[in-house]
């Protein structure tokens, strides 16, 4: 005979204000098998847990039901308490009477009735609960970091520092990411290259860190502690192990008209190239879309010049497979395309640039050697208009609904740097709001306004009209003065919204992690677990999770590293025992479950069965690998013969709950 205990939590007033908790405890005390039913103010507190433990011992309980908050919040807490009192933790059921009841109802009578029904369902289920035992699974002591920008580099450095091997997979020929393109950084105006490139070198020299540049993740299998990842090393047509990065090939390459991605297409590079002088690894890459040898078979200059024989026009993409215990996603961001914002004439005038393009125009290693010149005629600009929120905080599908967060600060930085270097240049900034929370951030913006006399105007630019004399007529409204403005500008700089990198979505599918509607990775909890994804063993670093500036990115990168290290330190991890199992006698071998399993946990084997007529038959049946199964339950729904069942959520348990609710 079952002996079941029911414990109803007040959660302060969270539950008790809308649910008559005493009435719920009283009603549930009459359910079959219930021998004790109590309420308490905070069941999750130490004294609340002791109440549960004492009752388990005193009444020799065989199962307990906690009527409280969502199981996502405290199921683990009560499982631990039960285990401490000698009860198998899987004999605990939670009835969610907070998120699914008290918080969403106003009427006490309705909410109390519903709480009782939810409690009855949990009691009906716990009758059928079986004790389950967790298995242990070993942890591979190696981490993968996807993305080699400042986020990925910082995460890799921290993990390596803790003594674990870590691989960085970067899709570009060099690590460094967006920060490598930036000139100076707010709010201290120190040079980005001076603080980033030493870290890139450190990553390259650390013997625990292995950089796969010009590579992509193409497949991820497995689960926390034991991921198997396929990495495609794209053919760069140069042998990485031989190339010394001398750069002679890039000087001699006759194909010099290739748009230079690193300088945002503002100048050209050669077909064989090293993205920038401080690239890591400093290895040349051939762009097959432009290389004359690859396209016409006539040239081969780089091959002749290379003294170490590193050029290999026949190189193929190479797939490597590696095992990892933890994966950190650091895929970063990109500015959005501006083709839907043609009121700013971005596609019609070379003097309308994005902020990232301006970074390159102002950078000492950029196309103009650090002198700010208009792209159209290489003349010094005397009036520059900045437009903020281009595509950010946008209420239609042209742009993004969110604030891109970094634009107010970098625009203030650009405005200040221009006023510092070229005091004869007038700078206007059009804004919706200036948002500068952050340490020393608002002081920075005030300096731009007060010390550098940057003209900040609240209002948006409606139209930019290029004129034949080379100037840009900027039509805007000044909302505070309530007037229309026309500014004759030499350049217009657009603070384009930022969005997650395009590789993020297919990657999220491979990793079975969640994304929000904007394709930012979703953290496991927005406040309490900000660097973990909801999928165990997958961590989030940097702007792939949401817009971030450099200080925040580095902080999150180190936090993600700490979480990954916490996992890698363990020799083994406890697996969830609530996994699927197949009743081989009922399985008809149809493969429906195998097709729906997102984790590849189901395989089919031929087994010998003794048939009712005493003959032996070979039948093809499903079997579940409990170490890979994540307990999602997709197979139990797909199985036409009812052979698949999920431990802890069996079909009979679910039906018992439904019966209890419908009674």
């Amino acid at each position, binding site marked *: 005979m079952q002996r079941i205990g029911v414990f109803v939590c007040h959660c302060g007033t969270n539950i008790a204000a809308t649910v008559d908790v005493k009435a719920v405890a009283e009603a549930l005390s009459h359910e079959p098998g219930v021998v004790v039913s109590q309420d308490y103010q905070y069941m999750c507190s130490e004294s609340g847990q002791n109440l549960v433990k004492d009752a388990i011992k005193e009444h020799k309980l065989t199962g307990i039901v906690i009527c409280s908050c969502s199981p996502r919040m405290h199921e683990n807490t009560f499982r631990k308490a039960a285990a401490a009192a000698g009860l198998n933790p899987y004999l605990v059921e939670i009835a969610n009477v907070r998120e699914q009841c008290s918080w969403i109802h106003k009427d006490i009578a309705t909410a109390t009735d519903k709480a009782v029904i939810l409690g009855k369902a949990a009691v009906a289920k716990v009758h059928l609960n079986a004790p389950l035992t967790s298995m242990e699974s070993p942890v591979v002591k190696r981490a993968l970091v996807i993305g080699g920008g400042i986020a990925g580099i910082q995460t890799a450095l921290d993990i390596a520092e803790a003594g674990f091997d870590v691989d960085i997979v970067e899709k570009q020929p060099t690590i460094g990411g967006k920060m490598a393109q930036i000139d100076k950084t707010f709010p201290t105006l120190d040079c980005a290259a001076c603080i980033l490139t030493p870290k890139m070198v450190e990553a390259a020299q650390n013997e625990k860190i292995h950089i796969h540049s010009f590579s992509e993740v193409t497949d991820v299998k497995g689960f926390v502690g034991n991921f198997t990842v396929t990495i495609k090393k794209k053919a760069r047509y140069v042998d990485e192990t031989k190339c010394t990065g001398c750069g002679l090939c890039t000087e001699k390459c006759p194909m010099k008209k290739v748009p230079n991605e690193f300088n945002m297409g503002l100048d050209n590079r050669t077909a064989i190239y090293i993205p920038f002088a401080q690239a890591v690894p400093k290895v040349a890459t051939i762009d097959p879309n432009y290389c004359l040898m690859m396209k016409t078979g006539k040239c081969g200059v780089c091959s002749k010049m290379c003294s170490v024989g590193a050029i290999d026009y026949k190189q193929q993409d190479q797939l490597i497979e590696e095992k990892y215990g933890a994966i950190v996603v650091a895929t970063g961001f990109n500015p959005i395309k501006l083709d*839907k*914002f*043609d*009121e700013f*004439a971005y596609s*019609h005038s070379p003097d309308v640039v994005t902020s990232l393009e301006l970074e390159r125009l102002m950078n000492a290693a950029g196309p103009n050697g650090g002198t700010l010149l208009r792209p159209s005629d290489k003349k010094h600009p005397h009036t520059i208009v900045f437009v903020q929120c281009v595509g950010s905080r946008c209420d239609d599908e042209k742009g993004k609904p969110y604030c891109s967060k970094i634009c107010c600060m970098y625009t203030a930085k650009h405005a200040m740097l221009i006023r510092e270097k070229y005091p004869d240049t007038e700078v206007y900034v059009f804004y919706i709001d200036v948002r500068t929370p952050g340490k020393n951030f608002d002081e920075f913006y005030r300096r731009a306004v007060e010390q550098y006399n940057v003209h900040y105007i609240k209002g948006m630019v409606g*139209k930019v*009209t290029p004129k*034949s004399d080379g100037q840009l*007529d900027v039509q805007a409204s000044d909302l505070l003065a309530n007037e229309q403005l026309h500014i004759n500008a030499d350049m217009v700089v657009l603070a384009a919204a930022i969005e997650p990198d395009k590789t993020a979505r297919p990657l999220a599918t491979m990793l079975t992690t969640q994304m929000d509607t904007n394709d930012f990775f979703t953290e496991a909890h927005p406040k309490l677990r900000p660097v973990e994804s909801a999928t165990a063993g997958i961590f989030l670093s940097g702007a792939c999770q949401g817009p971030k500036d450099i200080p925040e990115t580095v902080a999150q990168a180190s936090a993600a590293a700490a979480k990954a290290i916490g996992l890698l330190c363990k020799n083994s991890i406890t697996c969830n025992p609530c996994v699927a199992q197949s009743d081989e006698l009922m399985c008809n071998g149809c493969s429906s479950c195998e097709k729906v399993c997102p984790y590849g946990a189901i395989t089919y084997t031929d087994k010998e069965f003794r048939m009712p007529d005493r003959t032996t038959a070979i039948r093809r049946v499903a079997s579940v690998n409990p170490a890979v199964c994540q307990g999602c339950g997709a197979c139990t729904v797909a199985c036409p013969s009812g052979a698949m069942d999920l431990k802890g959520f069996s079909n009979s348990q679910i039906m018992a709950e439904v019966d209890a609710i419908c009674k």
Partner: protein
Amino acid sequence: METFTYYPGCTLRNKAKDLDEYARASAKALGIELEEPADWQCCGGAYTTAKDEIATKLSAVRVLDSAKSAGRPLVTVCSACHNVIKQTNYDISRDAEMAAKVNAYMQLDTPYNGETTVYHYLELLRDVVGFDKLREKITNPLAGKKIAAYYGCLLLRPAKALAMDDPENPTIMEDFIRAIGAEPVIYAQRNECCGGYITMEDKAQAAKRSAKIMDCAQDQGADMIITACPLCMYNLRKNSGSELPVYYFTELLAEALGLKEGANE
């Protein structure tokens, strides 16, 4: 020869005869029959786009239903008519309450719920004839002419309902200009408002708006401007103070097809 129901609109019967006649002549030359319904009425102009007003939309629904009964798509050419008819068609197919009210008032044999496909004449050229096919039929290409397309505000917006082209960076008229052998001039003001009906109340305001458009086109090297809208034509020609010639796009089409002499006799 494919036949379409053709809605000219009231302005095309008096002030904008050119727009209409060149459109008909060119269509015929391109193998398209435009058939006018017997009893069409004025679309009501842009005033009918007030959301909560049903009565002013009835004329648009009548012509849409007439095309539906004939089992043909509907072709419009005036920007304002096109705007009113397409918006009404869009609304009636999505807003059940409006559809119910309109149908209750009209008492048609079968209720009208937005079944008719509506083409602007430019869309007819792009999507039915095809600009490549059009280019082949040009006998008198306007080579060397630098033409600025003026879209105005009504032809493309609201983009969802009109579903014709990107309102901020359109290409349909530029592609048309290329098809008739001329060179398009891209200028920033091509999709700004000419002042429209404001000319009735505040002529100076309309003059300012239309002058801006003309000056911008001229500044970018245009020899002429083309439009699809009689009201834009009026403002650009009469209010802008600019000497830059303004034509309906259909006139240049007829010219390029070698029809110009005979068309408006």
